[in-house]
């Protein structure tokens, strides 16, 4: 992916750019709002990371300006303010996701992948498929290798989210946000339990597992281990 990072904290930016590079992404970095806006307007990026507080133009204004000039590159807004409202404000300005600092690099990368994927138009597909696992979103039917799998409504949504982000790492926080609409981190392993239930339904009776645990990050639904 081509990623634009607009971040004025040079240490944090260097760390982020290195991390993203090592994951095979091409990264441009801008250290202030004006440069960032200029780069975003004149290049095509798959996704961008925008710090909220920036010299020159602040992060929210950059996103707003880009949206006004119909640049719809997905934007993840980073902020040192972690309050509920700040999140709402960030999304209202045209941001696509919001992550409070300090963040885990794994969390950030997982979210960037998800954002880039979302920007592609295959969204509306009613049929989702990962390996021999198939989902019909209209009939709300899931089969694996032709066998019907009965899922609870929440399990269905969980699987749907994982299938849409097949091949990507999905963190617990992302699942909690997108499947349950809860924006906090529970102290107990509530999400893991739901994953393990889902796993028992889609993987247990099959030789080849699809739902993988990514240590230290989250989960990944993938045909290839």
């Amino acid at each position, binding site marked *: 992916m081509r990623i634009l990072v607009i971040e004025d904290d040079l240490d944090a930016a260097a760390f982020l750019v290195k991390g993203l590079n090592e994951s095979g992404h091409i990264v441009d970095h801008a250290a202030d709002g004006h440069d960032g806006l200029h780069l975003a307007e004149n290049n095509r990026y798959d996704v961008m990371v925008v710090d909220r507080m920036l010299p020159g133009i602040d992060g929210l204004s950059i996103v707003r300006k880009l949206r006004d000039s119909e640049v719809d590159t997905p934007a993840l807004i980073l902020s040192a303010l*972690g*309050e*509920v*409202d700040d999140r*709402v404000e960030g999304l*209202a300005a045209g941001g696509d996701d919001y992550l*409070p600092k*300090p963040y*885990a690099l794994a969390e950030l990368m997982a979210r960037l992948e998800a954002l880039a994927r979302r920007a592609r138009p295959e969204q509306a597909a009613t049929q989702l498929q990962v390996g021999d696992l198939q989902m019909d979103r209209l009939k709300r039917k899931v089969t694996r290798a032709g066998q019907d799998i009965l899922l609870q409504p*929440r399990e269905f949504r969980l699987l749907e989210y994982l299938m849409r982000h097949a091949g990507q790492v999905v963190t617990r926080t992302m699942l909690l946000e997108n499947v*349950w*609409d*809860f*924006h*906090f*981190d*529970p*102290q*107990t*392993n*509530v999400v893991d*339990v*739901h994953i*393990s*239930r889902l796993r028992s339904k889609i993987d247990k009776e099959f030789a080849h597992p699809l739902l993988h645990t990514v*240590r*230290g990050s989250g989960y990944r639904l993938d045909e290839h281990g």
Partner: protein
Amino acid sequence: MPRLLRTTAFRLSLLYAAVFSLIASAALGFVFWSTISHIDEQIDARLRLETDVLMQLFRSRELPGLLETIQTRNRADNAGTFVYLLSGPDRDLLAGPLTSWPTDLDASRTYATFTREQLFEVQPRSKGHDELIRVLVTQLPGGYRMLVGHSVEDAKRLQSHTLTIVAVAIAGIVGFALLGGALMGWDVLRRIDAVNRAAGEIVHGDLTRRLPISRRNDEFDALALRLNIMLERIEKLLVGMRQVTDHVAHDLRKPLNRLRSRLEVTLLEARNEDEYREVMEDAIADADDLIGTFNALLSIAQMEADVDRDGRTQFSASALCEDLAELYAAAAEDKHITFRSDIQSAITLNGVRGLVAQAFSNLLDNALKYAPTDGTIEFALRQDNDGAVVATVADNGPGIAAEDRERVLERFVRLEAARSTPGNGLGLSLVKAVTGLHGAQLVLRDNHPGLYVEVRFPNNLPRLTVSPA
């Protein structure tokens, strides 16, 4: 004194005094002027009347009668109030105290005013030489001329007397107005000084100081009362902030230290890559815990400061609790804990959904942590007849001893029994902060055995900003 002159109260009273004095002076001036002109008119009327009487006499008793009367009157009127003169056609004086008719009196039926020395031959500079005499000169048939005069000294005296009274009155009014203004200014200044002194002490760090309140219950007291409430709040917030800082310093030092020594010890021993990786993952987990603690502390502090934010909405508490129940039921089942939920439908709450969700989730986390294997967790939501929305979480774990129930709501308080379980000791503090922000009550009770937590949202939730988000 110069400070007094600069007070608003004094300046205002001064302005009022000036305006009031001006009006009073104008009124008194008018009274004075009309009195004086009335007196003048009266003198003229008396002269006219006297002249008319003498003319009547002249007509009925001819010249001798008039002469006799004038001479009699001049003699009788020794006090000199009235003077009478009569001259013949060739200006020879026929009657009167003078030897000859004053040369400059020609006109007829005219009023004029003279000084005594202009009419009579008196010693210059002698007493009464400048006494004013008002005269009426009348032309009589046959070339005779008659003068009737009257002293205006009495009127003069009355005039100057009135003037004195008016001047004294105006001076009095201005004086009292100034005095009143000064008193008022001084009173206001005194009270503001008291407030100033108190404010100064507060600025210098004595946060327990309050503004003085008198028993008058006036606008100053109302203001002072308001400010005192504000100071109370500030003091409370500062004390709270200080506590947070103390707790942060105290409780974060331990995990930070642990993290540090973990890394230090790792460096001392030669290890292979896998071992390093393991230590680093542990270190990251430690850091994550620290971040979580920081975040929790921050949001508690913000909520306790009651920084009112947007984000309050009307949301379905029933749906929220159903979702939470569903989320936690699986985890409970996994631990062989029976999870029962009894959630009434169609209950709405006005508040910050995310925070309420966080609070309930903390309670459920706790229940999950402390309920024994094969234990029970009960999660319920109901609306009472009085409209209050009540959420309860009960477990049959070890519970909390009655004497500790207040204490566990404080930050970082972890009971001995909880030392072995994971957690930062902020869960219940956060619940308390959320309930506080929503004006809800948080009650911990014994569940015989276990802990029973009740959160009661009163019906009349303050409807603050409702954002469309």
